[in-house]
């Protein structure tokens, strides 16, 4: 198994084991260098002017858009909108596309708060116009129940996560999309946890919207992507008003640019977007074949080692998981485990993982989550398991 740590300057300074990449990933040197390049060689505002410096920055920024298009195999560059993150992307679609156009919304039970609260802010409420897809015992989506829901509520908007941030469950996006379309519904897929682990092809999946965050895929903080089919984006109202999203402005009447610029009001996170391009290149250079192989090896090994621990409860037995594993220890609070692992220099997450409805449904108020990516190793898992056993011993 290749060791990718050398690509990440973080590990020169920090010797802790980092198992919290599902929260945010470390950044390869190429990304940091690119940020610096922008700030020190062509730092200027974009899309405004005629000067060379600004044109250079604009070119780099727009190249990031084209790189993103190619990365997820969108049809047109204009289908890529840059946002602050997944959260903003979902809020944008909820507020400017779904609200007032769709009467009913369908979510899964495993959604992150970022795919629940935006809908509530836009008037969707369980029992009234928000429906939750039942799940099977292994936390996978109950496709039959989903189909029934769609049958009962055609013309719905469906918003589901590609990969669960709390349990690593991979949802069958192609089937979910196929069924949604069959019942005249439109679907958004939250790819925040998928994009670093799964080769996403939006054309093949045929999803209507796909959203993700740069910071979870080796990119800078403060950058997200909203992919939308052009004809749908073109029906989407402006979300924020401001500079460089307008065609003409007067106090009486303002006309807007076409997508994607209509949705990028004001000065964007220019450095972040330009740096993000390098994150994509980093992934492309390694290749998803290698990434998937690497990630799967880690997750399978961790899963099998965790299962050996008495009193450890995994939330799912499914093999169809990626990125992260959640567990609890009978009789021990997840937070106690987290603190003692942290003191042993293992960084991972405990708590509800911003998925309270799922936690409540499962009757727990949190879990311990380990998440893995390219720079993690089998040896780290061995150290982690030892540390975990020590922690359990101290707390029993």
């Amino acid at each position, binding site marked *: 198994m290749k060791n990718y740590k050398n690509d990440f300057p973080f590990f020169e300074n920090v010797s802790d084991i980092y198992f919290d990449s599902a929260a945010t990933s470390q950044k390869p040197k190429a990304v940091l260098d690119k940020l610096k390049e922008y700030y020190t060689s062509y730092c200027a505002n974009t899309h405004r002017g005629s000067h060379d410096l600004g044109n250079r920055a604009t070119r780099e920024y727009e190249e990031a858009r084209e790189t993103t298009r190619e990365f997820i195999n969108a049809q047109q560059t204009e289908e890529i909108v840059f946002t602050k993150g997944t959260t903003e992307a979902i809020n944008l679609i909820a507020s400017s596309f779904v609200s007032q156009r769709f009467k009913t919304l369908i979510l899964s039970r495993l959604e992150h708060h970022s795919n629940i609260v935006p809908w509530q802010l836009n008037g969707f409420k369980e029992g009234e116009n928000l429906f939750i897809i039942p799940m099977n015992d292994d936390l996978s989506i109950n496709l039959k129940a989903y189909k029934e829901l769609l049958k009962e509520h055609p013309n719905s908007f469906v918003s589901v996560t590609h990969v669960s941030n709390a349990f690593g469950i991979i949802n069958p996006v192609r089937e979910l999309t196929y069924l949604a379309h069959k019942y005249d519904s439109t679907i958004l897929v939250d790819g925040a946890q998928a994009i670093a682990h799964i080769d996403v092809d939006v054309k093949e999946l045929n999803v209507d919207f796909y959203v993700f965050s740069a910071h979870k895929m080796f990119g800078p903080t403060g950058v997200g992507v909203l992919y939308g089919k052009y004809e749908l984006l073109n029906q989407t109202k402006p979300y924020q008003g401001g500079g460089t999203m307008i065609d003409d402005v007067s106090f009486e009447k303002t006309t807007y640019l076409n997508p994607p610029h209509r949705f990028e009001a004001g000065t964007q996170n220019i450095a972040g977007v330009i740096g993000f391009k390098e994150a994509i290149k980093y992934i492309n250079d390694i290749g998803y074949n290698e990434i998937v192989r690497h990630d799967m090896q880690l997750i399978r090994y961790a899963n099998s080692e965790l299962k050996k621990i008495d009193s450890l409860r995994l939330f799912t037995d499914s093999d169809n998981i990626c990125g992260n594993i959640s567990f609890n220890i009978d009789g021990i*609070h997840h937070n106690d485990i987290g603190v*003692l692992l942290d003191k042993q220099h293992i960084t991972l997450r405990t*708590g509800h993982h911003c998925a309270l409805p799922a936690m409540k449904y499962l009757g727990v108020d949190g879990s311990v989550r380990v998440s893995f990516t390219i720079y993690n190793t089998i040896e780290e898992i061995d150290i982690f398991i030892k540390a975990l056993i020590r922690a359990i011993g*101290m707390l029993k």
Partner: protein
Amino acid sequence: MIIRERIKEISNNLSLFDDVMQKYEYIIELGHELPSLDNKYKTDAYRVKGCQSNVWLNAYEKEDKLFFEADSDALIVRGLVNILISIYSSNSVGEILNSPSTLLEELGLNEIITAGRQNGVNSMLKRIYQFAHSKKGGINV
């Protein structure tokens, strides 16, 4: 300066441990030792919410002193709660308000003083000061 002295004492105790894991063994012991809070206080009204764990806190005044009793669903937090109680309970309003909460930094337990917005122990600490303020009739809570 009773609070300051108590903090000094606990901080001395904690500094006896070279090994951080031993320190936490001690805190866990303190967690085991903390008397359980009467169930009637384990309700939402007494709950100090945290992202990670819940703390229930009961505070009352008796003979010009403030008393605190608390519990948590997490063991290490119980240990930390135990420490906070041994520092703050049975002090006067003045003693508490004259000891800035940052004094606790001496303990070297960043579980207590963190910038985190949703830490149960941290929230308990805030409540202790709020309670002291309310008894002083102050408004700067």
